């Protein structure tokens, strides 16, 4: 089942009481690409993310991953299949060390995660792999620090390292550069480019320069529906997209 598209949605719809947050969205994410999902606030981007990772159940429509219907799967299972998400609010385990944060993600594959009688020293065999991952995101010198003490940009980097530890085929990044200073944005962009080399990335992003810089395909959402799709050059000149962004105060680019 190695089709051209790793992820497809078919008329994906989510209604909250009397309000359609996501309206018949048909997404096709090409294998190996960086696909960006953009749109004004409230366009339904995060809802789409939550649907894809099964944190929310769709009202109707289907989700296909590698040609397989995953609409009814549990979130833990979707993660085990290789779809790993990051969160809008930086999601680290604040009271674990930086190393432990990454190691928790590596640990599941050992198959000892229910072994309450074993010493945690049995996890030390994963430390070198965890350090490799931390090196990829320039965090080796912080390995022993408690994750909660990291500055914001570093937390995002740690989150990406944790996500990478799962060796995902498809990474879903929810606003990876949100709330970052200019310097951090540059670092995260480079990081995403690096990790996307041999996998597929779908991201929600507000920062237009990041989107323009990274993504090969852009889908613009407005009021829950797809407004336009294509490469940055096409989408950025689309009059409907310009209107949608000028109409709101959300245009950063």
């Amino acid at each position, binding site marked *: 089942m190695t089709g051209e598209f790793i992820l497809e949605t078919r008329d994906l719809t989510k209604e909250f009481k009397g309000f359609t947050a996501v309206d018949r969205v048909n997404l096709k994410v090409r294998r190996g690409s960086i696909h960006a999902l953009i749109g004004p606030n409230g366009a339904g981007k995060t809802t789409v993310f939550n649907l894809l*990772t099964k*944190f929310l159940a769709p009202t109707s429509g289907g989700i296909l991953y590698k040609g397989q219907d995953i609409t009814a799967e*549990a*979130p*833990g*299972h979707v*993660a*085990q299949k290789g779809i*790993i*998400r990051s*969160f809008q609010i930086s*999601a*680290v*385990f*604040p*009271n*674990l060390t930086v190393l*432990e944060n990454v*190691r*928790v*993600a590596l*640990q*599941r594959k*050992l198959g*000892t*995660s*229910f*072994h*309450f*009688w*074993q*010493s*945690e020293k*049995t*996890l030390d065999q994963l430390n070198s792999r965890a350090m490799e991952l931390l090196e990829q995101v320039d965090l080796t010198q912080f390995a022993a620090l408690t994750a909660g003490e990291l500055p914001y940009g570093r937390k995002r980097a740690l989150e990406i390292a*944790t996500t990478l530890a*799962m060796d995902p085929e498809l990474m879903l990044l929810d606003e990876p550069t949100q709330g970052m200073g200019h310097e951090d944005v540059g670092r995260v962009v480079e990081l995403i480019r690096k990790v996307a080399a041999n996998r597929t990335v779908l991201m929600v992003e507000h920062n237009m320069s990041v989107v323009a810089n990274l993504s090969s395909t852009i889908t613009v959402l407005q009021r829950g529906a797809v407004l336009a799709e294509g490469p940055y050059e096409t989408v950025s000149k689309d009059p409907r997209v310009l209107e949608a962004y000028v109409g709101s105060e959300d245009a950063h680019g």
Partner: protein
Amino acid sequence: MSLSKTGVLYIAVLALACAAPFIGGYPLFLMKCLCFALFACAFNLLIGFTGLLSFGHAMFFGMAAYIAAHSAKVWGWTPEVAIIAATLGSAALGYVTGWLAVRRQGIYFAMITLALSQMVYFFCVQAPFTYAEDGIQSVPRGKLFGVISLADDRVMYYFVLAIFVFGYWMIHRIIHSPFGQVLKSIRENEPRALSLGYEVHKYKLLAFVLSAALAGMAGATKALALGLATLTDVQWQMSGEVVLMTLLGGMGTIAGPVVGSTIIIAMQNYLSGFGSWVTIIMGATFVVCVLAFRRGIVGELQHFLKSRSNKA
């Protein structure tokens, strides 16, 4: 370095515990302290290391007390078998109640555990073998492995101490195991743990069963040590008391519940002359604890030591 310091501290405390009955410690009081300390430690495994507030832990403590008392008194089982049976019984009860409760979070989880423990309480009021208001009295301690008589308070004390050390070591091991790592990650950020492929319900359920089993072990030991299993053990006030013990000592610290429970038991014991004022004094202590030192006694101490070593 800090590790060896902790090790020295543990050895010192253990030596003190071994010597206690010979330096003026009253064995019955000491046994009661140890049983409640283990109970609080078991409770802390859930609230402190998994982030689940159970408001029905008395059902495990009390039910195990009944099982141990009944099997020792009526069926004549030896103490170690009675305690093991009661522990397994609590684990089974924990599996059923946990299976229902872990599907909900926060206050709903607490309410479900409370509701289920009330059901267990009313069962115990009605069931003939518990003797309702009278409780099961004068439970024989029997002979350990059918050989060593536990009738002497000091001998019994060492048996209880051994059980406590085993339980405490067990909890320490659980917290510092691969499983414990996952529990901590669930406590810290459940959606993230889920997105890393952990089916969090299953982990919570195992933690709940382990906590129930250890709480049961504490209850069973208490029933044999004090020769008594009553409705007090299974009542909701007991569930509240263990919350208080854990918060006072410091939830999420491994030694905190021991300190907290010892203080509460000591208060109940030595202030019993004040009658129902004890409850008011305990309530006031709780308020002061929440207002002034939220991390609990051990938690504040650790924080103080850590901030001092950071400055140095």
